[in-house]
């Protein structure tokens, strides 16, 4: 009895471990890595303001804050972002006015671009173990880069005389993704991200 059991044990155990070890991950496309995060001031009543203002520029937030004027993002993408924000704000019952008309809230957007570089190296012995490891062969070096873009959107109560000359935001959205290299695809992802930020913020808008 036990011999039969013992002889059956390895294949059963092996099959079970194979089943368990099969562990997929869900990321198939770059867009699967897109993230939209929003946070807000819970004490602020977003139904109170009626008017908003939005600048006509989207600046790029770079590592050097002394750059003056700061860089701007691609004009086509900039316009797309501003138009999408306006559409969403209007759809939520807010009315756009010029900043000189003292709006109730201001909507601002900024972009962040980070290039990530990964590299690795290894000796040929990893690939040709049959021949042993010869360190005098040049190592295999691989490099990969990818660009992560982040759009930051803020809503701030507007004041011509803010206390301490500082504006305190009441809503922030972070829309983050990896650049695919396809302009039209990335633009669509930005639009989807902005829309999602408003969708997941049901407290926004006039009743």
């Amino acid at each position, binding site marked *: *009895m036990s011999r039969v059991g013992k002889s059956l044990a390895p294949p*059963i*155990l092996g099959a*079970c471990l194979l089943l368990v070890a099969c562990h997929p991950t869900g990321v198939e496309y770059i867009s699967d890595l*897109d*993230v939209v995060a929003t946070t807000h001031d819970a004490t602020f009543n977003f139904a109170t303001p009626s008017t908003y203002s939005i600048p006509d520029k989207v600046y790029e937030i770079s590592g050097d804050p002394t750059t003056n004027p700061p860089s701007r993002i691609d004009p086509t993408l900039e316009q797309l972002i501003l138009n999408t924000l306006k559409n969403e704000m209007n759809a939520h019952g807010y009315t756009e006015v010029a900043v000189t008309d003292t709006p109730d809230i201001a909507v601002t957007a900024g972009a962040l671009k980070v290039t990530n570089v990964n590299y690795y190296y290894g000796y040929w012995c990893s690939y040709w173990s049959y021949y042993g490891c010869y360190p005098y062969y040049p190592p295999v070096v691989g490099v990969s880069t990818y660009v992560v873009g982040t759009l930051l959107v803020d809503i701030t109560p507007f004041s011509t005389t803010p206390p301490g000359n500082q504006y305190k935001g009441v809503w922030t959205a972070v829309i983050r993704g990896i650049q695919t290299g396809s302009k039209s695809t990335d633009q669509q992802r930005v639009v989807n991200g902005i829309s999602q930020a408003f969708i997941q913020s049901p407290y926004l808008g006039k009743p």
Partner: protein
Amino acid sequence: MRTHKLLPFAAATVLLSATGVRAQLPPTLVGLSYQLSIPIGETYNYTHPVSWRGVGLEVASFVRRDLAVGLAFGWNVFFENITTTTSYKGTEVYGNQDRTLNVWPVLANARWFPKLSSNRDIQPYIGANIGGYIIERYFAVGQTASQETHFHFGLAPEIGVFFQNPVGAVFLSARYNMAFASGGVPFQQFLGLSLGYAWERN
């Protein structure tokens, strides 16, 4: 001379008694099983799908003809890929999420095999498990991931049935696993269904 005559008798007595002791030793069962797990409660809230990745290893010794005590080890993997919004410390995060629970039960158990009929080839049982669950919880959204592992105290009632055959036994069981909250990870529950094969280890 008289002593010499007694020696074979003494030796035979020792051998026979040793054989008798040997026969009374509780047989040890070793079992391997494939496990399906149905998430419940907070486990379900974290990963909805039924886990079909599970394996179990059981060792049991009969202390009485109708009572066995043993150890149960396992590995159950719950996984879900979902695109949804999650709330975390006042921030709503939307994205494609990978959620994984790796659960390793380490349990001591007792099983009672009631005599329901003269047919011992089909033997149901009722069991109780106590011990711990090592649970690794993995969460990834976008390019960010977090992982935490905690030991949870746990209990698990169990029912099952052995179908004995000349070379071992096939068994089916249902175990209700309850791992109490630990390290900020809430109470976890899942129903494990096992199909396994057991054999006697002398």
